């Protein structure tokens, strides 16, 4: 008795609604079934715009699934089926539209923007590295002599003797003294 109750309870939990929405099709060849799943994921429902026809329970999606099944069984190629759909519902009906002059920005735009960003980043890093290079002995001697000259001229004994790491810092120092 308890077993029966358990079985009935489990059966009540089955997703009956989902059965009612998506019909099942028999395929003569498992390859066709795979292609059916692939294409029905890629084709977009014209009525409910953010669903593919596999997920949508709109009448038009049911029609398109039926059509897809019958075309697959008749031996149509993927291109033929997609061409048939696009001729009637426009590029809109594909989640992966063909590359043409209308969609080329869509396809390559993000890649180009990412490339520009990457180039900018590389340039920035290269420049930063160049600035961070240690001072050579020759530069150090040059700086010291300049500091000595400026101190001698102004007599500012409090002048910091910190060695700056770039020419520009040295020049600023010279100007301000």
């Amino acid at each position, binding site marked *: 008795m308890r077993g029966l109750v358990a079985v009935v309870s489990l059966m009540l939990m089955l997703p009956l609604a989902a059965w009612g929405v998506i019909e099942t099709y028999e395929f003569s060849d498992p390859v066709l079934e795979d292609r059916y799943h692939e294409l029905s994921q890629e084709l977009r429902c*014209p009525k409910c715009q953010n669903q593919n026809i596999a997920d949508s329970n*709109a009448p*038009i999606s049911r029609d398109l699934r039926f059509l897809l099944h019958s075309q697959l069984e008749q031996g149509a190629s993927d291109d033929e089926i997609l061409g048939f759909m696009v001729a*009637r*519902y*426009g590029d809109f009906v594909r989640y992966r539209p063909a590359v043409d002059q209308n969609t080329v920005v869509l396809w390559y735009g993000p890649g180009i923007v990412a490339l520009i960003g990457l180039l900018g980043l590389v340039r920035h890093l290269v420049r930063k590295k160049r600035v961070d290079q240690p001072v050579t002995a020759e530069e150090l001697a040059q700086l010291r002599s300049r500091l000595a000259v400026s101190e001698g001229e102004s007599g500012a004994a409090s002048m910091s003797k910190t060695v700056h790491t770039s020419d520009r810092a040295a020049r600023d120092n010279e100007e301000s003294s």
Partner: protein
Amino acid sequence: MGRLKLFLPLLAFAVLGAFLFRGLSLDPKALPSALIGKPLPDFSLQALTAEGLVTREDLLGEPALINVWATWCYSCRVEHPYLLDLARSGIKIIGLNYKDQADPARQWLEALGDPYAVVLSDTAGTLGLDLGVYGAPETYVLDATGDIQYRHVGVVDETVWVQNLARFFPDPERELDTTPLGSSIGEGP
């Protein structure tokens, strides 16, 4: 140049902003027909309110509206009085009774009035499919040579007619019957 570069992010923001602002006034649901400028597909369908078959050639000669409707479509009932007004003012309207049954459809026309010059009975939805119909009501503009010029999805009313459809017909200033919408329910054409 060094200083001008500082304005690049602002420029990028302005460009992006312009696109997004444009997007605010676009209707994401608007879906132009794939058949704009292309010929109406060939068909041969039973006439709903007359005997015999209707083919593509029977519809040519003057610009017309092709109105996709069905008795299961609530919005079709909403736009029906306005279609009667249009028909009365001389616009040729072709009905496409889409995925419907003939008897209830005929009863509908008897009860509400028949604005259609001819009604095609597309029980299986084959012409609907070839036209790219994805629901009802939809209204297409067919020019005199048989090319599709425009598609409107949803109810046709005064605003839609004036803004989108009237320009395809010879006399855009055409005086429409000015009886208020809905008053013609129940009257014959």
